């Protein structure tokens, strides 16, 4: 527990002034402009938008600049801004099948309608530092094919048509919204997906990886990964038809996972799903792995790995919440710490007294060792 303290205004003001100077950096180099961040650090912008849960590339770029590139801080800034805006509408669920494709690959079928489209990817690069970029070498414009891209239907629909994979059908259920009501565990899949979509990428990546290493294995295949733009439509009372308000960049991953079946139902592949703002391929893959892991109970699997524990996974996925609670340790805990000091000194005095009373016997029985009292520790409360 921490207590409020006063004072330090001048120190804080000067600290922030120095921070601004540090953020600006050496004055003999040009100041970083927000359009440069937006246009040249696109993947950072995507990540901040996804984890802040607000799609606005310009503001995400501003947040990155303001945070000196600290992504968690940038997510926090954009998340905080989000709370200042009213909600004007809800969108029609995105039709990702109608995505204008920039990248679309499947690891399950070699030949798919529309083909395997690599798009602007870091895959197949050699991961060698490009020293030409130190010298800002000219960059060639992208190649263009003579023909345009053919339609790219969803790969999993092909399996779906054969009944080999569980169907995803809309029963019209209104999704829970964690921004309106806090999640109450256990939560349904719509709630889980909303929480995973804003979850920290590194955290989800580690959890997804853990399922691959055997902690809740679910035997995934990347059925389809697609990146591109989708048009967004809203329903408003002024107009009967849904209205398109523009398009956004989006990433989607459809995992095909181990099959289950029962006496009643024939064996079928199961699904894990990942969707995120911007170009966030790794995030959506991790999200799809964790989504599938969290369906363990629904699919009658024994939860054996951390990634299958919904409350554990979801309650710790949000970087703003996690950073907030870890960071609060920096706040003054002077009084709290003083009480711990008092307790420790008393225990040590009692210990010394017992030792002296027992004469020269130096073998301390194990049950005399008192564990360090911690927050909410019943031992401490009993002794206090």
């Amino acid at each position, binding site marked *: 527990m921490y207590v409020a303290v006063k004072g330090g205004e001048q120190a804080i003001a000067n600290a922030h002034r120095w921070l601004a100077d540090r953020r600006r950096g050496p004055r003999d180099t040009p100041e970083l402009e927000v359009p440069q961040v937006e246009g040249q650090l696109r993947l950072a912008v995507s990540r901040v938008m996804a984890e802040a849960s607000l799609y606005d590339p*310009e503001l995400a770029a501003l947040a990155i600049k303001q945070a000196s590139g600290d992504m968690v801080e940038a997510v926090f800034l954009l998340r905080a801004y989000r709370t200042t805006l009213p909600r004007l509408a809800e969108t029609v669920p995105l039709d990702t099948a109608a995505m*204008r494709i920039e990248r679309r690959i499947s690891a399950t079928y070699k030949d798919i309608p529309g083909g395997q489209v690599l798009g602007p990817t870091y895959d197949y690069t050699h991961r060698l530092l490009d020293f030409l970029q130190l010298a800002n070498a000219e960059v060639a414009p992208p190649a263009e094919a003579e023909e345009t891209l053919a339609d790219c239907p969803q790969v999993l629909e092909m399996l779906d048509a054969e009944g080999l994979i569980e169907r995803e059908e809309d029963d019209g259920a209104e999704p829970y919204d964690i921004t309106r009501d806090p999640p109450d565990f256990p939560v349904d899949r719509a709630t889980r997906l*909303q929480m995973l*979509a804003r979850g920290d990428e590194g955290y989800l990546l580690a959890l997804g990886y853990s399922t691959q290493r055997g902690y809740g294995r679910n035997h995934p295949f990347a059925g389809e990964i697609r990146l591109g733009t989708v048009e*967004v439509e809203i329903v408003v009372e002024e107009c009967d038809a849904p209205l398109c308000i523009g398009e956004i960049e989006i990433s989607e991953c459809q995992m095909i996972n181990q099959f289950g079946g029962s006496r009643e139902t024939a064996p079928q592949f199961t699904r894990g799903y990942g969707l995120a703002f911007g170009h966030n391929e790794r995030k959506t893959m991790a999200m799809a792995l964790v989504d599938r892991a969290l369906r363990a109970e629904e699919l009658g699997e024994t939860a054996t790995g951390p990634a299958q524990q919904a409350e554990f996974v979801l309650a710790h996925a949000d970087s703003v919440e996690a950073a907030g609670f870890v960071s609060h340790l920096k706040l003054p805990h002077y009084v709290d710490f003083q009480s711990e000091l008092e307790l420790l000194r008393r225990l040590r005095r009692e210990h010394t007294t017992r030792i002296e009373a027992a004469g020269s016997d130096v073998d301390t029985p194990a049950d005399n060792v008192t564990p360090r009292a911690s927050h909410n520790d019943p031992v401490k409360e009993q002794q206090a």
Partner: protein
Amino acid sequence: MTSARRQRILALTPRERLAEQWARLGITPDYRCVRGPEVGMAMVRGRMGGTGNAFNLGEMTLTRASVQLMNDGVATDADTELGHGWVKGRDTRHAELIAVVDACAKRREWQADIEEGLVAPLEQALDAERHEQAQRAAATRVDFFTMVRGE
């Protein structure tokens, strides 16, 4: 031309291009803003597996505006000459411009100009851009072939 189809083209078009094309028509009505322009958000929804139940993905910024045409400083027929504009992001001028075009399109004398001189060329420009982007994507299309093991 439905207003939904017009709204779509105008929202997908960058504001600078829309303003430039609109200026060419020389339609300069008096109007007043009856709502906004105001910046807010839309909750973006996805579907599980692309086809299943909806879930809330996250929000996006959204700007809306509603205008009413005026004649000599007096509001005209409210039922027919209100215009609405919605656009992603925070560009209030873009939303207002869409609303003005929407209101003007309800006046018979401007309908053809707006359709032929504004929406049609903007739609063509969008199609051309999209075609070019699809060509870029098509240039990265591969044909994998599996190797026979042991060869």
